């Protein structure tokens, strides 16, 4: 946003932040002409406890940033630090100088990267500040009213200490990593503070160097601190570094070693740990991989470097140049880009920080936006399922094996039914066809599988058919991404309704895509096959963000038929029982018949004398013989039933159509695009032809620009124009407006 000119003066009046000879006014970071600053109460003076104006802040520090938290340590009760997570919505870079010598000298040897002595630093220009009320703690703070990202690169310094907290050192992170001075992650693994040193320049081609701030400098809050913490009211400088080394600004950690008797010290940063060894209170965090340090610095929303040479001379898209990511709300969370990825950040194209659209007073969108969709690994689907990959020969073999279930059960040693074998091995639902959930064919050359071919085990029964284990419940197949390239120069013709896009996805059908969403972006399709159900889901992504999902069926169900052995077993069991029963009956039938014969004789004698006795005996004998015969027949029938039980069949699933297999197995983006006199019907369309030029000369090309007509040439049409300053009558101005609407050749 544009700085408040009442407070900071008009941009034309801003001063270069250095006095370097041959400074390029367009390349120099700027400070305001302090004598014109108006706090709103008195021109040229800052009022006590009046915040600085907030219109020059380019970004805020989000409350989830690793440097957002502020601890307040009461030395008398250090175990209970107060803290606040409010985030920093508005901060300023600047410096404080009370020496008032104006201007400061400047010298630099651009060929000597190692020389960081005082004389080789880039000095800022302090201003006379004598008129400011001494009770205002911010009276000497001179903010940068405009910062050029290319000329304000942050170099990282750290304070480190040993495991015993016995040797605290400050060193450039580059030197720490490379153990230049004997302080390294090995010897000094604890980080007790993180600093940044602005490395600046005031030409777009010159080498950057350190800014030297004689007294204090750093960052300040431009608003009343939201914290309800002691002793902070009216204090605006937050991270100012009090006359310390190399004008670095501490952004994480405590300023100095804290002793128990100190009251109300402040520590900035998250994720650290307190240590109370040696009578001191130290806030620290282990260096680890150092990633967290980069995230702390990234929270400032500027370009930064670990390597000294990169900070001095590196381009903004240098491999070792980092850039803090600023989200759509203008807030920094600690994310960063590196190298050529920096080009996608808005800071890369800022002329200066005033190009930022950040408004600290604007409501904050609470949503977190993401441009990618994460895919989850689907695993751990523990189930009772077992999957085998079969080839066509194995499927044929399986068909036969499923009918062999009854073949082995009539194999007793004596040629009779082996009842025990039946009962033990086949009685309790040991039914292979019941164990089959599905048999599906997939249009896949080789279904992913592991191990070597081995016999299948269906439930309890191992059959002769062999196959491979298939350990995956699903598998993702990728299609080659394409960039949806605008064929008409990225004009309106490339978008709806002139151009339409349809995406054919094998097994899922065709979906319509909105050209407004995907034109100029990378389109990506991933097909997830669910190897349990035979369904598939296609995920259509635009620049890694899933924008469409569509489902389909990919597998063909193969009907499986086999012996229904449970019923077979039931029948067999019943048959066995019948057979046993009939066999027993057959054995006792003659005895029963004899008893019946004797009974008949008794009955006959009693009824009809001797003749009756004979007659009775004969009837009884015949009855006995018939009974024995019946028993024999029943026993044979039972055995017959036992050995000739008809095996019932069971079928798994039904066949399914193969229509989805008949079309292309690749995705295909179908593009319909317009034709016309000025668009030659070629592929790709010829978009630079004479007819188009003639059209442009007569009609102009549509645009919408808030500009002056002289920015263009040829035919220019302006729908509205402000004629302030034109010495014409009102009727003439009406004619001018009409002429502009009709168009002017310029």
């Amino acid at each position, binding site marked *: 946003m544009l700085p408040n000119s009442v407070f900071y003066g008009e941009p034309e009046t801003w001063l270069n932040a250095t006095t370097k000879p041959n400074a390029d006014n367009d390349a120099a970071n700027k400070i305001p002409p302090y004598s014109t600053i108006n706090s709103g109460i008195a021109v040229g003076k800052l009022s006590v406890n009046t915040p600085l104006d907030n219109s020059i802040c380019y970004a805020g520090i989000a409350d989830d940033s690793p440097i957002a938290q502020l601890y307040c340590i009461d030395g008398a009760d250090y175990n209970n630090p107060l803290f606040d997570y409010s985030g920093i919505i508005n901060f300023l870079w600047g410096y404080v100088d009370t020496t008032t010598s104006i201007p400061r000298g400047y010298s630099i040897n651009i060929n000597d990267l190692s020389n960081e002595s005082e004389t080789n630093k880039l000095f800022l220009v302090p201003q006379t500040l004598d008129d400011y009320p001494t009770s205002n703690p911010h009276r000497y703070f001179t903010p940068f009213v405009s910062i050029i990202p290319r000329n304000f690169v942050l170099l990282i310094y750290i304070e480190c200490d040993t495991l015993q907290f016995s040797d605290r050192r400050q060193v450039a992170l580059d030197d720490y990593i490379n153990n230049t001075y004997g302080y390294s992650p090995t010897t000094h693994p604890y980080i007790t503070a993180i600093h940044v040193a602005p490395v600046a320049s005031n030409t777009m081609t010159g080498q950057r160097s350190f800014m030297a701030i004689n007294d204090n400098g750093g960052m300040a809050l431009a608003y009343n601190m939201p914290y309800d913490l002691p002793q902070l009211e009216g204090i605006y400088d937050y991270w100012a570094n009090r006359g310390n080394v190399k004008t670095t600004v501490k952004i994480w950690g405590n300023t100095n070693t804290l002793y128990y008797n100190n009251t109300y010290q402040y520590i900035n940063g998250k994720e650290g740990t307190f240590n109370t060894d040696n009578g001191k209170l130290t806030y620290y965090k282990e260096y680890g991989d150092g990633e967290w340090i980069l995230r702390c610095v990234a929270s400032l929303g500027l370009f930064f470097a670990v390597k000294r040479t990169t900070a001095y001379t590196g381009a903004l898209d240098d491999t070792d140049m980092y850039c803090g990511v600023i989200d759509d709300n203008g807030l920094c969370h600690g994310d960063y880009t590196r190298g050529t990825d920096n080009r996608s950040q808005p800071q890369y194209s800022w002329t200066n920080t005033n190009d930022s659209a950040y408004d600290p007073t604007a409501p904050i969108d609470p949503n977190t936006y993401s441009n990618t969709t994460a895919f989850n690994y689907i695993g751990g689907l523990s189930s009772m*399922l077992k999957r085998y990959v079969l080839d066509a020969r194995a499927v044929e073999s399986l068909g036969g094996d499923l009918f062999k279930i009854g073949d082995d059960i009539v194999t007793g040693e004596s040629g009779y039914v082996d009842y025990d074998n039946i009962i033990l091995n086949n009685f309790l639902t040991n039914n292979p066809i019941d164990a089959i959930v599905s048999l599906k064919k997939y249009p896949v050359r080789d279904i992913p599988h592991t191990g070597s071919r081995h016999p299948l085990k269906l439930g309890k029964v191992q059959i002769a058919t062999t196959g491979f284990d298939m350990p995956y419940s699903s598998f993702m197949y990728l299609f080659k991404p394409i960039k949806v390239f605008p064929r008409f120069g990225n004009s309106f013709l490339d978008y709806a309704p002139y151009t339409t896009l349809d995406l054919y996805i094998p097994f899922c059908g065709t979906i319509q895509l909105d050209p407004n969403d995907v034109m100029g972006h990378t389109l990506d399709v991933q097909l997830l096959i669910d190897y349990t159900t035979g369904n598939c889901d296609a995920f259509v992504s635009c620049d890694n963000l899933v924008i469409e999902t569509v489902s389909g069926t990919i597998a063909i169900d193969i009907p499986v038929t086999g012996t229904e052995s449970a019923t077979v077993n039931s029948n067999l069991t019943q048959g066995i029982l019948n057979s046993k029963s009939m066999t027993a009956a057959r054995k006792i039938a003659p005895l029963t018949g004899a008893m019946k014969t004797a009974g008949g004789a008794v009955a006959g004698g009693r009824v009809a004398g001797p003749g009756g006795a004979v007659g009775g005996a004969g009837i009884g004998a015949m009855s006995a013989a018939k009974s024995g015969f019946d028993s024999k027949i029943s026993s044979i029938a039972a055995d017959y039933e036992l050995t000739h039980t008809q095996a019932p069949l069971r079928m798994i699933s039904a066949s399914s159509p193969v229509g989805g297999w008949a079309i292309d197995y690749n995705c295909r983006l179908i593009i319909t*695009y317009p034709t016309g006199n000025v668009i030659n019907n070629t592929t790709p369309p010829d978009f630079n032809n004479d007819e188009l030029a003639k059209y442009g000369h007569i009609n102009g090309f549509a645009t919408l620009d808030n500009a002056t007509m002289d920015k*263009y040439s040829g035919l220019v049409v*302006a729908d509205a124009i402000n004629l302030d300053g034109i010495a014409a009558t009102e009727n003439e101005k009406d004619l*001018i407006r009409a002429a502009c609407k009709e168009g002017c050749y310029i």
Partner: protein
Amino acid sequence: MMAATLYKTTADTKSIDKITGAEIIAPDIEIKAFESVSILTPVFVLAYNAAYLRANYIYVSDFAKWYYITDMSVDTAGRIFLRCSIDVRQTFGVAFIHCPAIITRAENIGKPTLYPDSQLPVHPNKKNITSIIMPETSSSFTGDGDTCYLLTCIGGEPTE
């Protein structure tokens, strides 16, 4: 009496510079206003000269304005009547092209832009169609694969 210069210009009406390349028919001639004239659509009278009849454009120094000659008439007294209409493009163009405006069309953009252009001659219905193939990267899909059957069972040792 007023001073004026007659031109013959072939420039398009919309041009803000109709003089470059224009033919000067008569420089610094004397003209009179015909009765009371408007500065927007004045009528001027000048002495007859056959060459003047070729003019279609006039600069009137006293008004410091440029006019189209929209009609001419000659009377029997040997006078030419020039009916004129002010050309605000030529008169004020140099100034108003620096005024802030909302530009809606421009020639030097050179090609259609993202802004819909209803004037561009595009067929309302006729379209061309083409497609871009996105091959499956592992060439896994086929209708006649070998190990392409999957048997799912219950029991035994589960897969996962």
